[in-house]
């Protein structure tokens, strides 16, 4: 029982810490679809490697297939996606060998608040970027199978 209590407390502490970190660095709440022009700046939150990042949140429905694009001419982009439980679920450095922009196409596995990480590959670089979230239509209702 003691171990169970300790594990529960540990889990809750981690959850609160995760939520606090997300809240601290979250710059926007998006309504999908969205096209955002923004700037990565020196006063943004910093990753371990010294790169700056913005966190942008949106409400997503399970089963929706989204495309998220991060583009910049000022820096090499890195794009991440975090699910409502705080699990990093997808990322992308370069959309193709010929581009330093980033793109994620992902089918949401859960409904809730999802978080986009808009980041640079290199440390300490700043600059303008564009974020596009598209494909936001929620899946239609499931047909109920009828047993004859």
């Amino acid at each position, binding site marked *: 029982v003691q171990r169970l209590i300790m*594990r529960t407390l*540990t*889990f809750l*502490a*981690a959850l609160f*810490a*995760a939520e*606090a*970190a*997300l809240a*601290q*660095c979250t*710059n*926007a*709440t*998006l*309504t999908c*679809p*969205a*096209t*955002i*022009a*923004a*700037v990565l*700046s020196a006063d943004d*939150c910093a*990753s*371990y*490697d010294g*790169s700056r*990042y*913005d*966190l942008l949140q949106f409400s997503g429905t399970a089963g929706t297939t989204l495309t998220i694009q991060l*583009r*910049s*001419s*000022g820096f*090499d982009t*890195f794009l*991440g996606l*975090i699910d409502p439980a*705080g*699990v*990093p*679920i*997808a*990322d992308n*450095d*370069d959309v193709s*060998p*010929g*581009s*330093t*922009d980033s793109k994620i196409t992902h089918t949401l596995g859960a409904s809730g608040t999802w978080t986009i*990480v808009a*980041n640079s*590959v290199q440390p300490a670089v700043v600059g*303008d*970027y*564009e974020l596009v979230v598209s494909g936001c239509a929620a899946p239609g209702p499931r047909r109920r199978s009828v047993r004859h």
Partner: protein
Amino acid sequence: MNGMNRRDLITKSLAAVALFAAKPGSILAEAVGIKRLDLTPTDVCTLTCRSTLGPCFYEGRVARRDITEGQGGLPTLLSLLVVNADTCQPVPGAAIDIWHANANGLYSAPISNMCTDGNTAARNSTFLRGIQTTDADGWAHFNTVYPGWYSGRTPHIHSTVRVNSSEMVTTQFFFPDDLSTKIYTAHPAYTARGRADTTNTRDNVIGGAAARVTPFLFQPKLIGTSQLFALKVIAIRSSATTCNA
């Protein structure tokens, strides 16, 4: 910037950014410059050298992306890109087998007690082990937690890459020491055990000059102390042309 001029961007930004209070939008210039695959710019296609398999391998061969089995720890996404070291082209269809210790430094599976510390629950589990196959672009992803440490070893993740069932390389990947320290002293799943007792340069497998470990380091993107994106390129050749770490 394709398909969008400045006026469009301003219009869309103003419409969509109603809640975007903290940071005013600004305009992007047209994309210029030479583009390249630059995840790790200097060594992306340098052959990945082999390292010891270690005693904690288990022939489980479970194909799954989420290998956590409920293990606590810093949620971590491992993104691994397999490339051909000669052509520098992505390798689709490569099977990547990974295994590592949990936040308490224990491996799973009915293997040597030195790996599980004789822990029954660990021996009866298969946590933090799994296989994924690279996609058409050469990528494979694992949802896991940041590995814990155990005495004498720096935090690490084991990996074997196979193509058409032939082993290409078995090796181990590492994290920067100060990243591990930050996580072990800040994340509640690790703080009770504190910082690792072994650094990369003192590790009994990869230890030595700092430059020796560099090719095996993940590129980490730590979000607060809440999530980690860790990326690594694995460059392979046939097993006849391997190098040793």
